[in-house]
Protein backbone atom coordinates (compact mmCIF):
# COMPACT_ATOMS: atom_id res chain seq x y z
CA UNK A 1 0.00 0.00 0.00
CA UNK A 2 1.18 3.55 -0.60
CA UNK A 3 3.47 4.93 2.03
CA UNK A 4 2.90 8.00 4.10
CA UNK A 5 4.84 10.50 6.15
CA UNK A 6 3.06 12.32 8.88
CA UNK A 7 4.22 15.84 9.57
CA UNK A 8 3.07 18.02 12.40
CA UNK A 9 3.20 21.71 12.95
CA UNK A 10 5.75 22.84 15.47
CA UNK A 11 4.94 26.37 16.58
CA UNK A 12 7.75 28.68 17.52
CA UNK A 13 8.49 29.05 21.16
CA UNK A 14 5.97 31.27 22.80
CA UNK A 15 3.39 31.02 20.03
CA UNK A 16 0.40 28.82 19.63
CA UNK A 17 -1.21 27.29 16.63
CA UNK A 18 -4.24 29.03 15.22
CA UNK A 19 -6.63 28.69 12.33
CA UNK A 20 -4.87 31.42 10.39
CA UNK A 21 -1.87 29.18 10.06
CA UNK A 22 -4.11 26.37 8.90
CA UNK A 23 -5.62 28.42 6.12
CA UNK A 24 -2.17 29.64 5.06
CA UNK A 25 -0.95 26.09 4.87
CA UNK A 26 -3.94 25.08 2.78
CA UNK A 27 -3.20 27.93 0.46
CA UNK A 28 0.36 26.69 0.17
CA UNK A 29 -0.83 23.34 -1.04
CA UNK A 30 -3.07 24.97 -3.59
CA UNK A 31 -0.25 27.20 -4.72
CA UNK A 32 1.77 24.17 -5.76
CA UNK A 33 -1.18 22.97 -7.80
CA UNK A 34 -2.58 20.51 -5.36
CA UNK A 35 -6.03 19.54 -6.57
CA UNK A 36 -8.53 19.49 -3.73
CA UNK A 37 -10.27 16.16 -3.66
CA UNK A 38 -12.37 15.92 -0.57
CA UNK A 39 -12.40 15.72 3.19
CA UNK A 40 -10.68 13.31 5.49
CA UNK A 41 -11.00 12.48 9.14
CA UNK A 42 -9.27 10.18 11.51
CA UNK A 43 -9.97 9.76 15.18
CA UNK A 44 -7.60 9.21 18.04
CA UNK A 45 -8.74 8.16 21.50
CA UNK A 46 -6.90 8.00 24.78
CA UNK A 47 -7.78 5.06 26.90
CA UNK A 48 -7.21 4.77 30.58
CA UNK A 49 -7.37 1.54 32.40
CA UNK A 50 -10.27 1.13 34.76
CA UNK A 51 -8.96 -0.50 37.88
CA UNK A 52 -10.73 -1.24 41.08
CA UNK A 53 -7.48 -1.63 42.85
CA UNK A 54 -5.52 1.56 42.34
CA UNK A 55 -2.29 0.01 43.56
CA UNK A 56 -2.09 -2.00 40.41
CA UNK A 57 -1.98 1.18 38.37
CA UNK A 58 1.71 0.88 37.72
CA UNK A 59 1.37 -2.48 36.06
CA UNK A 60 -0.90 -1.21 33.36
CA UNK A 61 0.23 0.99 30.54
CA UNK A 62 -0.87 4.51 31.09
CA UNK A 63 -1.16 5.58 27.52
CA UNK A 64 -3.23 3.27 25.45
CA UNK A 65 -4.10 4.94 22.21
CA UNK A 66 -6.82 3.84 19.87
CA UNK A 67 -6.89 5.11 16.32
CA UNK A 68 -9.47 4.85 13.63
CA UNK A 69 -8.17 5.73 10.17
CA UNK A 70 -10.17 7.02 7.23
CA UNK A 71 -8.61 4.62 4.76
CA UNK A 72 -9.38 1.57 6.87
CA UNK A 73 -12.98 1.88 7.95
CA UNK A 74 -13.18 -1.72 9.15
CA UNK A 75 -10.14 -1.63 11.34
CA UNK A 76 -9.13 -0.15 14.64
CA UNK A 77 -5.58 0.27 15.83
CA UNK A 78 -4.15 0.20 19.33
CA UNK A 79 -0.75 1.52 20.24
CA UNK A 80 1.10 1.13 23.48
CA UNK A 81 3.94 3.48 22.93
CA UNK A 82 5.89 2.65 26.01
CA UNK A 83 5.83 -1.03 25.15
CA UNK A 84 6.25 -0.44 21.43
CA UNK A 85 3.21 -2.44 20.63
CA UNK A 86 0.86 -1.82 17.74
CA UNK A 87 -2.19 -3.89 17.12
CA UNK A 88 -4.62 -4.03 14.27
CA UNK A 89 -8.10 -5.13 15.21
CA UNK A 90 -11.54 -5.18 13.73
CA UNK A 91 -13.52 -2.00 14.26
CA UNK A 92 -15.98 -3.83 16.50
CA UNK A 93 -13.29 -3.96 19.16
CA UNK A 94 -14.51 -0.59 20.36
CA UNK A 95 -17.82 -2.13 21.23
CA UNK A 96 -16.08 -4.94 23.04
CA UNK A 97 -13.98 -2.48 24.98
CA UNK A 98 -17.09 -0.68 26.13
CA UNK A 99 -18.70 -3.87 27.21
CA UNK A 100 -15.63 -5.06 29.03
CA UNK A 101 -15.17 -1.77 30.78
CA UNK A 102 -11.50 -2.57 31.23
CA UNK A 103 -10.37 0.59 29.55
CA UNK A 104 -12.36 3.74 29.33
CA UNK A 105 -11.96 6.32 26.69
CA UNK A 106 -10.84 9.52 28.22
CA UNK A 107 -10.25 12.01 25.45
CA UNK A 108 -10.94 11.80 21.76
CA UNK A 109 -9.44 13.95 19.08
CA UNK A 110 -10.32 14.45 15.48
CA UNK A 111 -7.76 14.88 12.76
CA UNK A 112 -9.74 16.33 9.95
CA UNK A 113 -9.31 18.49 6.91
CA UNK A 114 -8.98 18.42 3.16
CA UNK A 115 -7.25 16.04 0.82
CA UNK A 116 -5.24 17.11 -2.22
CA UNK A 117 -3.86 15.28 -5.23
CA UNK A 118 -0.49 16.30 -6.60
CA UNK A 119 0.81 14.02 -9.33
CA UNK A 120 1.76 10.76 -7.67
CA UNK A 121 1.39 12.33 -4.23
CA UNK A 122 -1.62 12.70 -2.03
CA UNK A 123 -1.58 15.35 0.67
CA UNK A 124 -3.86 15.73 3.64
CA UNK A 125 -3.84 18.88 5.66
CA UNK A 126 -5.74 18.64 8.88
CA UNK A 127 -6.47 20.31 12.19
CA UNK A 128 -6.41 18.54 15.49
CA UNK A 129 -9.52 19.28 17.54
CA UNK A 130 -11.07 17.60 20.53
CA UNK A 131 -14.31 15.85 19.78
CA UNK A 132 -16.61 18.23 21.48
CA UNK A 133 -14.98 21.55 20.90
CA UNK A 134 -13.59 23.67 18.16
CA UNK A 135 -10.38 24.39 20.03
CA UNK A 136 -7.54 24.00 17.59
CA UNK A 137 -4.85 21.92 19.23
CA UNK A 138 -2.56 21.34 16.33
CA UNK A 139 -2.04 20.98 12.60
CA UNK A 140 -0.91 17.82 10.88
CA UNK A 141 -0.13 16.92 7.35
CA UNK A 142 -0.03 13.53 5.68
CA UNK A 143 2.23 13.18 2.66
CA UNK A 144 1.41 10.01 0.80
CA UNK A 145 3.40 8.67 -2.14
CA UNK A 146 1.23 6.36 -4.12
CA UNK A 147 3.37 4.29 -6.49
CA UNK A 148 5.45 2.23 -4.10
CA UNK A 149 5.32 0.71 -0.68
CA UNK A 150 8.93 0.57 0.42
CA UNK A 151 9.88 3.07 3.09
CA UNK A 152 13.52 2.63 2.39
CA UNK A 153 13.32 3.07 -1.35
CA UNK A 154 11.14 6.10 -1.11
CA UNK A 155 13.10 7.95 1.52
CA UNK A 156 14.98 10.15 -0.90
CA UNK A 157 11.89 11.14 -2.80
CA UNK A 158 9.97 11.91 0.33
CA UNK A 159 12.78 13.97 1.74
CA UNK A 160 13.01 15.94 -1.45
CA UNK A 161 9.30 16.52 -1.42
CA UNK A 162 9.30 17.64 2.18
CA UNK A 163 12.18 19.98 1.39
CA UNK A 164 10.16 21.59 -1.35
CA UNK A 165 7.20 21.77 0.97
CA UNK A 166 9.18 23.39 3.75
CA UNK A 167 10.51 25.90 1.29
CA UNK A 168 7.03 26.75 0.13
CA UNK A 169 5.73 27.19 3.63
CA UNK A 170 8.69 29.23 4.82
CA UNK A 171 7.90 31.83 2.19
CA UNK A 172 4.79 32.67 4.14
CA UNK A 173 6.77 33.57 7.25
CA UNK A 174 4.53 31.71 9.63
CA UNK A 175 5.44 31.35 13.29
CA UNK A 176 6.52 27.74 13.15
CA UNK A 177 7.36 24.95 10.80
CA UNK A 178 6.45 21.40 9.92
CA UNK A 179 8.39 18.59 11.44
CA UNK A 180 8.75 15.00 10.57
CA UNK A 181 9.76 12.42 13.09
CA UNK A 182 10.68 9.06 11.77
CA UNK A 183 9.63 6.40 14.22
CA UNK A 184 11.75 3.34 14.59
CA UNK A 185 9.30 1.01 12.99
CA UNK A 186 11.47 -2.01 13.62
CA UNK A 187 10.91 -1.58 17.34
CA UNK A 188 7.23 -2.02 16.75
CA UNK A 189 7.86 -5.15 14.73
CA UNK A 190 6.99 -3.49 11.45
CA UNK A 191 8.79 -4.08 8.19
CA UNK A 192 9.88 -1.91 5.33
CA UNK A 193 6.67 -2.60 3.49
CA UNK A 194 4.26 0.12 4.51
CA UNK A 195 0.96 -0.66 6.18
CA UNK A 196 -1.73 1.17 8.13
CA UNK A 197 -0.04 0.04 11.29
CA UNK A 198 2.84 2.27 10.32
CA UNK A 199 0.38 5.12 10.04
CA UNK A 200 -1.02 4.36 13.46
CA UNK A 201 2.46 4.45 14.98
CA UNK A 202 3.18 7.78 13.32
CA UNK A 203 0.01 9.23 14.77
CA UNK A 204 0.94 8.04 18.22
CA UNK A 205 4.32 9.69 17.96
CA UNK A 206 2.83 12.92 16.66
CA UNK A 207 0.31 12.90 19.47
CA UNK A 208 3.06 12.70 22.00
CA UNK A 209 4.78 15.62 20.34
CA UNK A 210 1.65 17.71 20.36
CA UNK A 211 1.11 17.09 24.03
CA UNK A 212 4.70 17.95 24.77
CA UNK A 213 4.55 21.17 22.81
CA UNK A 214 1.32 22.21 24.47
CA UNK A 215 2.86 21.68 27.85
CA UNK A 216 5.87 23.85 27.04
Amino acid sequence: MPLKWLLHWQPNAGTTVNSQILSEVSQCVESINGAKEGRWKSTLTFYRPVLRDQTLQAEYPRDCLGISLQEQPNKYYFILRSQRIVLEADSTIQMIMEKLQSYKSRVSLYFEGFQYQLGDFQLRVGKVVPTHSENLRGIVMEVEYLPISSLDKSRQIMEDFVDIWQETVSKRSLPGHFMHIEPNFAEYGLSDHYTSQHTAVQYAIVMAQLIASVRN
Partner: protein
Amino acid sequence: MQQQPQAPVASATQPDQLESCETTAEAPPKQVALAMERLGQAARLIADVRLGADRLLEALFIAAQPHQSNKPLHLIVNEEATMRQHLQDLRAVGRQLEESGVLNSLRSRNNSWGLHMPLVCPDGAVVAYAWKRQLAGQAGASAVDRTRLALKAFTDQRRRFFPHLEDESSGQTSGVESGVSKKHCSSQASTLTHKEEPSEEKTLPEVLLRVEKEAPNMRIFTYQHLDWLKRASALSSSTNENFIESSKENNFQTSNRLRTGSLGPVSADQIAAVELLVPSVFRAIISLHPAGSIEPDAVAFFSPDEGGSYIHSRGFSVYHVFRHLTEHAVKALQFFLGINTDTALYNLLHWICSYETLFTKSCCIFNCCFAVNVGGF
Protein backbone atom coordinates in the same frame (compact mmCIF):
# COMPACT_ATOMS: atom_id res chain seq x y z
CA MET B 1 -35.80 11.98 -67.70
CA GLN B 2 -35.53 15.07 -69.71
CA GLN B 3 -32.14 16.59 -69.92
CA GLN B 4 -33.17 20.21 -69.60
CA PRO B 5 -29.89 22.03 -69.46
CA GLN B 6 -28.74 20.52 -72.64
CA ALA B 7 -31.73 21.95 -74.48
CA PRO B 8 -30.43 25.53 -74.77
CA VAL B 9 -27.26 24.18 -76.29
CA ALA B 10 -29.17 21.82 -78.53
CA SER B 11 -31.49 24.56 -79.75
CA ALA B 12 -28.56 26.28 -81.36
CA THR B 13 -27.97 23.30 -83.56
CA GLN B 14 -28.79 23.16 -87.16
CA PRO B 15 -31.63 21.02 -88.45
CA ASP B 16 -29.28 18.28 -89.48
CA GLN B 17 -28.31 17.89 -85.86
CA LEU B 18 -31.55 16.21 -84.93
CA GLU B 19 -29.52 13.26 -84.00
CA SER B 20 -27.80 15.10 -81.23
CA CYS B 21 -31.12 16.52 -80.01
CA GLU B 22 -32.35 13.01 -79.56
CA THR B 23 -29.27 11.99 -77.69
CA THR B 24 -29.73 14.80 -75.21
CA ALA B 25 -32.91 13.10 -74.10
CA GLU B 26 -30.94 10.13 -72.96
CA ALA B 27 -29.35 9.47 -69.64
CA PRO B 28 -25.82 10.67 -69.06
CA PRO B 29 -24.17 7.30 -69.22
CA LYS B 30 -25.48 6.83 -72.71
CA GLN B 31 -24.44 10.34 -73.59
CA VAL B 32 -21.05 9.62 -72.22
CA ALA B 33 -20.81 6.42 -74.23
CA LEU B 34 -21.81 8.24 -77.37
CA ALA B 35 -19.41 11.02 -76.68
CA MET B 36 -16.59 8.59 -76.09
CA GLU B 37 -17.43 6.88 -79.34
CA ARG B 38 -17.41 10.15 -81.17
CA LEU B 39 -14.13 11.11 -79.66
CA GLY B 40 -12.78 7.83 -80.94
CA GLN B 41 -14.16 8.62 -84.33
CA ALA B 42 -12.59 12.00 -84.26
CA ALA B 43 -9.26 10.52 -83.32
CA ARG B 44 -9.45 8.10 -86.22
CA LEU B 45 -10.41 10.86 -88.61
CA ILE B 46 -7.52 12.94 -87.43
CA ALA B 47 -5.22 10.00 -88.04
CA ASP B 48 -6.66 9.62 -91.51
CA VAL B 49 -6.10 13.28 -92.21
CA ARG B 50 -2.50 12.97 -91.09
CA LEU B 51 -2.00 9.97 -93.29
CA GLY B 52 -3.57 11.79 -96.22
CA ALA B 53 -1.29 14.73 -95.66
CA ASP B 54 1.70 12.40 -95.72
CA ARG B 55 0.57 10.91 -98.99
CA LEU B 56 0.05 14.32 -100.52
CA LEU B 57 3.51 15.33 -99.51
CA GLU B 58 4.93 12.12 -100.94
CA ALA B 59 3.07 12.65 -104.16
CA LEU B 60 4.34 16.20 -104.39
CA PHE B 61 7.84 14.96 -103.73
CA ILE B 62 7.58 12.39 -106.50
CA ALA B 63 6.08 14.98 -108.78
CA ALA B 64 9.03 17.19 -108.10
CA GLN B 65 11.32 14.49 -109.42
CA PRO B 66 12.10 14.77 -113.10
CA HIS B 67 10.74 12.35 -115.63
CA GLN B 68 7.61 11.31 -113.82
CA SER B 69 4.39 10.07 -115.17
CA ASN B 70 0.92 11.26 -114.27
CA LYS B 71 0.84 8.95 -111.35
CA PRO B 72 1.61 11.56 -108.72
CA LEU B 73 -1.07 13.77 -110.18
CA HIS B 74 -3.65 11.01 -109.77
CA LEU B 75 -2.43 10.37 -106.30
CA ILE B 76 -2.80 13.98 -105.39
CA VAL B 77 -6.24 14.29 -106.82
CA ASN B 78 -7.46 11.14 -105.10
CA GLU B 79 -5.88 12.09 -101.89
CA GLU B 80 -7.38 15.52 -101.99
CA ALA B 81 -10.85 14.07 -102.32
CA THR B 82 -10.24 11.68 -99.45
CA MET B 83 -8.83 14.41 -97.28
CA ARG B 84 -11.74 16.66 -97.93
CA GLN B 85 -14.12 13.92 -96.90
CA HIS B 86 -12.17 13.20 -93.75
CA LEU B 87 -12.13 16.84 -92.81
CA GLN B 88 -15.84 17.15 -93.37
CA ASP B 89 -16.49 14.12 -91.22
CA LEU B 90 -14.24 15.55 -88.60
CA ARG B 91 -16.12 18.78 -88.66
CA ALA B 92 -19.37 16.89 -88.23
CA VAL B 93 -18.11 14.88 -85.32
CA GLY B 94 -16.68 17.98 -83.81
CA ARG B 95 -20.00 19.70 -84.01
CA GLN B 96 -21.70 16.73 -82.40
CA LEU B 97 -19.20 16.72 -79.60
CA GLU B 98 -19.60 20.40 -79.14
CA GLU B 99 -23.33 20.08 -78.87
CA SER B 100 -23.15 17.31 -76.36
CA GLY B 101 -21.01 19.55 -74.28
CA VAL B 102 -17.76 17.62 -74.39
CA LEU B 103 -15.65 20.45 -75.53
CA ASN B 104 -17.65 23.08 -73.73
CA SER B 105 -18.15 21.29 -70.50
CA LEU B 106 -16.28 23.94 -68.67
CA ARG B 107 -18.86 26.44 -69.75
CA SER B 108 -21.99 24.38 -69.41
CA ARG B 109 -21.95 23.84 -65.70
CA ASN B 110 -25.68 23.76 -65.19
CA ASN B 111 -25.97 20.08 -65.82
CA SER B 112 -28.92 18.83 -63.85
CA TRP B 113 -27.37 15.48 -63.29
CA GLY B 114 -24.40 17.08 -61.71
CA LEU B 115 -22.23 15.31 -64.22
CA HIS B 116 -20.01 16.89 -66.70
CA MET B 117 -19.60 15.38 -70.13
CA PRO B 118 -16.34 13.85 -71.09
CA LEU B 119 -13.72 16.38 -70.56
CA VAL B 120 -10.80 16.94 -72.80
CA CYS B 121 -8.30 18.37 -70.42
CA PRO B 122 -5.68 20.90 -71.38
CA ASP B 123 -3.04 18.26 -71.09
CA GLY B 124 -4.84 16.15 -73.71
CA ALA B 125 -6.21 13.55 -71.32
CA VAL B 126 -9.78 12.53 -71.92
CA VAL B 127 -11.74 12.01 -68.81
CA ALA B 128 -15.12 10.35 -69.07
CA TYR B 129 -16.44 12.07 -66.03
CA ALA B 130 -15.02 15.36 -65.02
CA TRP B 131 -15.94 14.78 -61.45
CA LYS B 132 -13.88 11.68 -61.49
CA ARG B 133 -10.91 13.81 -62.17
CA GLN B 134 -11.93 16.09 -59.38
CA LEU B 135 -12.23 13.17 -57.06
CA ALA B 136 -8.96 11.82 -58.26
CA GLY B 137 -7.51 15.23 -57.63
CA GLN B 138 -8.94 15.27 -54.18
CA ALA B 139 -7.62 11.82 -53.52
CA GLY B 140 -4.27 12.96 -54.73
CA ALA B 141 -4.36 15.95 -52.44
CA SER B 142 -5.36 13.89 -49.44
CA ALA B 143 -2.67 11.38 -50.29
CA VAL B 144 -0.17 14.19 -50.18
CA ASP B 145 -1.53 15.29 -46.83
CA ARG B 146 -1.47 11.82 -45.50
CA THR B 147 2.07 11.33 -46.63
CA ARG B 148 3.07 14.57 -45.01
CA LEU B 149 1.45 13.57 -41.74
CA ALA B 150 3.03 10.15 -41.88
CA LEU B 151 6.42 11.68 -42.48
CA LYS B 152 5.96 14.04 -39.60
CA ALA B 153 4.89 11.22 -37.30
CA PHE B 154 7.85 9.16 -38.39
CA THR B 155 10.26 12.00 -37.76
CA ASP B 156 8.80 12.58 -34.33
CA GLN B 157 9.09 8.94 -33.42
CA ARG B 158 12.57 8.77 -34.74
CA ARG B 159 13.56 11.76 -32.71
CA ARG B 160 12.00 10.19 -29.68
CA PHE B 161 13.41 6.73 -29.95
CA PHE B 162 16.72 7.37 -31.59
CA PRO B 163 17.97 10.57 -30.06
CA HIS B 164 21.48 9.39 -30.51
CA LEU B 165 21.03 9.59 -34.24
CA GLU B 166 20.37 13.29 -33.98
CA ASP B 167 23.12 15.85 -34.11
CA GLU B 168 22.71 16.79 -30.45
CA SER B 169 24.75 15.15 -27.74
CA SER B 170 23.81 11.54 -27.54
CA GLY B 171 21.48 10.38 -24.82
CA GLN B 172 20.08 13.77 -23.91
CA THR B 173 16.35 14.09 -24.13
CA SER B 174 14.55 17.28 -23.53
CA GLY B 175 11.73 15.64 -21.64
CA VAL B 176 9.65 18.77 -21.76
CA GLU B 177 6.03 18.01 -22.34
CA SER B 178 3.04 20.21 -22.32
CA GLY B 179 0.89 19.49 -19.35
CA VAL B 180 -1.27 21.38 -16.95
CA SER B 181 1.43 23.57 -15.47
CA LYS B 182 3.65 20.58 -14.98
CA LYS B 183 7.23 20.97 -15.96
CA HIS B 184 9.50 18.00 -16.04
CA CYS B 185 13.07 18.77 -15.44
CA SER B 186 15.16 17.33 -18.17
CA SER B 187 15.72 13.77 -17.21
CA GLN B 188 18.97 12.40 -18.30
CA ALA B 189 18.62 9.31 -20.33
CA SER B 190 20.75 6.60 -18.92
CA THR B 191 24.36 7.27 -19.57
CA LEU B 192 25.25 3.90 -20.84
CA THR B 193 28.73 2.70 -21.07
CA HIS B 194 28.97 0.18 -23.78
CA LYS B 195 30.64 -2.83 -22.35
CA GLU B 196 32.38 -4.99 -24.83
CA GLU B 197 31.55 -8.23 -23.12
CA PRO B 198 31.29 -11.22 -25.33
CA SER B 199 27.82 -12.46 -24.62
CA GLU B 200 27.54 -16.19 -24.30
CA GLU B 201 23.89 -16.26 -23.59
CA LYS B 202 22.02 -17.36 -26.62
CA THR B 203 18.96 -18.82 -25.02
CA LEU B 204 16.38 -17.35 -22.75
CA PRO B 205 17.14 -19.50 -19.71
CA GLU B 206 20.78 -18.55 -19.90
CA VAL B 207 20.01 -14.87 -20.10
CA LEU B 208 17.61 -15.00 -17.19
CA LEU B 209 20.01 -17.00 -15.09
CA ARG B 210 22.75 -14.50 -15.56
CA VAL B 211 20.41 -11.65 -14.69
CA GLU B 212 19.15 -13.44 -11.60
CA LYS B 213 22.65 -13.55 -10.25
CA GLU B 214 23.10 -9.85 -10.77
CA ALA B 215 19.98 -8.79 -8.93
CA PRO B 216 19.15 -11.17 -6.13
CA ASN B 217 16.34 -8.95 -4.90
CA MET B 218 14.59 -9.08 -8.20
CA ARG B 219 12.26 -11.94 -8.92
CA ILE B 220 11.89 -13.14 -12.45
CA PHE B 221 8.90 -15.02 -13.74
CA THR B 222 8.14 -16.22 -17.22
CA TYR B 223 4.80 -16.70 -18.86
CA GLN B 224 3.15 -17.94 -21.93
CA HIS B 225 1.29 -15.20 -23.68
CA LEU B 226 -2.22 -15.82 -22.40
CA ASP B 227 -1.07 -16.88 -18.98
CA TRP B 228 0.33 -13.45 -18.31
CA LEU B 229 -2.98 -11.81 -19.18
CA LYS B 230 -4.74 -14.05 -16.71
CA ARG B 231 -2.24 -13.22 -14.05
CA ALA B 232 -2.47 -9.51 -14.73
CA SER B 233 -6.20 -9.55 -14.23
CA ALA B 234 -5.77 -11.51 -11.05
CA LEU B 235 -3.41 -8.95 -9.61
CA SER B 236 -5.18 -6.65 -7.28
CA SER B 237 -4.05 -3.77 -5.15
CA SER B 238 -2.29 -5.91 -2.64
CA THR B 239 -2.85 -5.89 1.05
CA ASN B 240 -0.19 -7.47 3.14
CA GLU B 241 -1.83 -10.84 2.99
CA ASN B 242 -2.29 -10.86 -0.76
CA PHE B 243 1.26 -9.82 -1.26
CA ILE B 244 2.66 -12.64 0.76
CA GLU B 245 0.35 -15.19 -0.75
CA SER B 246 1.01 -14.27 -4.33
CA SER B 247 4.72 -14.33 -3.81
CA LYS B 248 4.52 -17.84 -2.47
CA GLU B 249 2.34 -18.97 -5.34
CA ASN B 250 4.80 -18.00 -7.98
CA ASN B 251 7.88 -19.23 -6.32
CA PHE B 252 8.15 -22.69 -7.75
CA GLN B 253 10.81 -23.79 -10.12
CA THR B 254 10.60 -25.93 -13.17
CA SER B 255 13.13 -28.49 -14.11
CA ASN B 256 15.08 -26.16 -16.36
CA ARG B 257 15.33 -23.65 -13.54
CA LEU B 258 13.05 -21.13 -15.14
CA ARG B 259 10.63 -19.78 -12.60
CA THR B 260 7.41 -19.89 -14.46
CA GLY B 261 4.29 -18.10 -13.47
CA SER B 262 2.32 -20.11 -15.94
CA LEU B 263 0.28 -22.95 -14.63
CA GLY B 264 1.86 -26.18 -15.54
CA PRO B 265 5.22 -26.80 -17.13
CA VAL B 266 6.20 -24.41 -19.84
CA SER B 267 8.97 -25.05 -22.27
CA ALA B 268 11.34 -22.23 -22.99
CA ASP B 269 10.23 -21.86 -26.56
CA GLN B 270 6.72 -20.81 -25.58
CA ILE B 271 7.64 -18.00 -23.28
CA ALA B 272 6.21 -14.73 -24.46
CA ALA B 273 6.36 -12.55 -21.35
CA VAL B 274 8.93 -11.99 -18.65
CA GLU B 275 7.94 -10.39 -15.39
CA LEU B 276 10.52 -8.70 -13.21
CA LEU B 277 9.28 -8.01 -9.74
CA VAL B 278 11.15 -6.08 -7.12
CA PRO B 279 8.81 -6.12 -4.18
CA SER B 280 7.72 -2.67 -3.05
CA VAL B 281 9.58 -1.01 -5.90
CA PHE B 282 8.29 -1.97 -9.32
CA ARG B 283 6.97 -4.61 -11.60
CA ALA B 284 8.29 -4.67 -15.13
CA ILE B 285 6.86 -6.67 -18.00
CA ILE B 286 8.86 -7.48 -21.09
CA SER B 287 7.32 -9.22 -24.04
CA LEU B 288 9.31 -11.38 -26.37
CA HIS B 289 8.62 -11.78 -30.01
CA PRO B 290 8.67 -14.42 -31.32
CA ALA B 291 7.86 -16.44 -28.26
CA GLY B 292 10.80 -18.27 -26.84
CA SER B 293 13.34 -16.06 -28.49
CA ILE B 294 15.58 -13.54 -26.82
CA GLU B 295 14.21 -10.63 -28.77
CA PRO B 296 12.32 -8.19 -26.63
CA ASP B 297 9.74 -6.12 -28.39
CA ALA B 298 8.10 -4.09 -25.65
CA VAL B 299 8.62 -3.16 -22.02
CA ALA B 300 6.56 -1.38 -19.39
CA PHE B 301 6.84 -0.55 -15.71
CA PHE B 302 4.16 -0.58 -13.06
CA SER B 303 3.73 -0.18 -9.36
CA PRO B 304 3.82 -3.53 -7.59
CA ASP B 305 0.44 -2.64 -6.11
CA GLU B 306 -1.25 -2.18 -9.42
CA GLY B 307 -3.48 -4.80 -10.86
CA GLY B 308 -5.71 -5.25 -13.83
CA SER B 309 -5.72 -6.30 -17.43
CA TYR B 310 -3.87 -3.18 -18.49
CA ILE B 311 -0.69 -4.52 -16.92
CA HIS B 312 1.21 -5.72 -19.95
CA SER B 313 4.28 -4.80 -21.91
CA ARG B 314 2.47 -2.13 -23.87
CA GLY B 315 0.32 -0.78 -21.08
CA PHE B 316 0.79 2.33 -18.99
CA SER B 317 0.82 2.71 -15.25
CA VAL B 318 -1.57 5.02 -13.48
CA TYR B 319 1.36 6.59 -11.70
CA HIS B 320 3.43 9.27 -13.34
CA VAL B 321 6.71 7.97 -12.10
CA PHE B 322 6.19 4.58 -13.69
CA ARG B 323 4.95 6.15 -16.88
CA HIS B 324 8.17 8.13 -17.08
CA LEU B 325 10.09 5.01 -16.34
CA THR B 326 8.30 3.16 -19.11
CA GLU B 327 9.18 5.89 -21.57
CA HIS B 328 12.82 5.67 -20.62
CA ALA B 329 12.73 1.91 -20.80
CA VAL B 330 11.23 1.99 -24.28
CA LYS B 331 13.99 4.30 -25.43
CA ALA B 332 16.56 2.04 -23.86
CA LEU B 333 15.03 -0.96 -25.57
CA GLN B 334 15.15 0.70 -28.96
CA PHE B 335 18.69 1.72 -28.29
CA PHE B 336 19.75 -1.80 -27.40
CA LEU B 337 17.94 -3.27 -30.36
CA GLY B 338 19.71 -0.80 -32.55
CA ILE B 339 23.09 -1.90 -31.29
CA ASN B 340 22.70 -5.63 -31.42
CA THR B 341 19.50 -7.63 -31.47
CA ASP B 342 21.08 -10.69 -29.90
CA THR B 343 22.23 -8.96 -26.79
CA ALA B 344 19.28 -6.59 -26.54
CA LEU B 345 17.37 -8.63 -23.99
CA TYR B 346 20.35 -9.11 -21.75
CA ASN B 347 21.28 -5.44 -21.99
CA LEU B 348 17.76 -4.38 -21.16
CA LEU B 349 17.53 -6.67 -18.16
CA HIS B 350 20.93 -5.55 -16.98
CA TRP B 351 19.84 -1.94 -17.28
CA ILE B 352 16.75 -2.70 -15.27
CA CYS B 353 18.92 -4.36 -12.64
CA SER B 354 20.50 -1.02 -11.93
CA TYR B 355 17.26 0.01 -10.35
CA GLU B 356 18.82 0.56 -6.98
CA THR B 357 19.25 4.18 -7.80
CA LEU B 358 15.73 4.45 -9.09
CA PHE B 359 14.20 6.32 -6.24
CA THR B 360 17.30 7.65 -4.64
CA LYS B 361 18.56 9.89 -7.34
CA SER B 362 15.63 12.02 -8.12
CA CYS B 363 15.56 15.49 -9.38
CA CYS B 364 12.55 17.49 -8.59
CA ILE B 365 11.34 20.94 -9.22
CA PHE B 366 9.03 23.35 -7.62
CA ASN B 367 5.67 22.07 -8.68
CA CYS B 368 6.54 18.67 -7.42
CA CYS B 369 6.72 16.64 -10.53
CA PHE B 370 9.50 14.23 -10.17
CA ALA B 371 11.49 13.06 -13.11
CA VAL B 372 13.41 10.04 -12.09
CA ASN B 373 16.99 9.81 -13.07
CA VAL B 374 17.73 6.19 -13.57
CA GLY B 375 21.27 5.29 -12.86
CA GLY B 376 23.22 3.79 -15.66
CA PHE B 377 25.58 0.89 -15.66
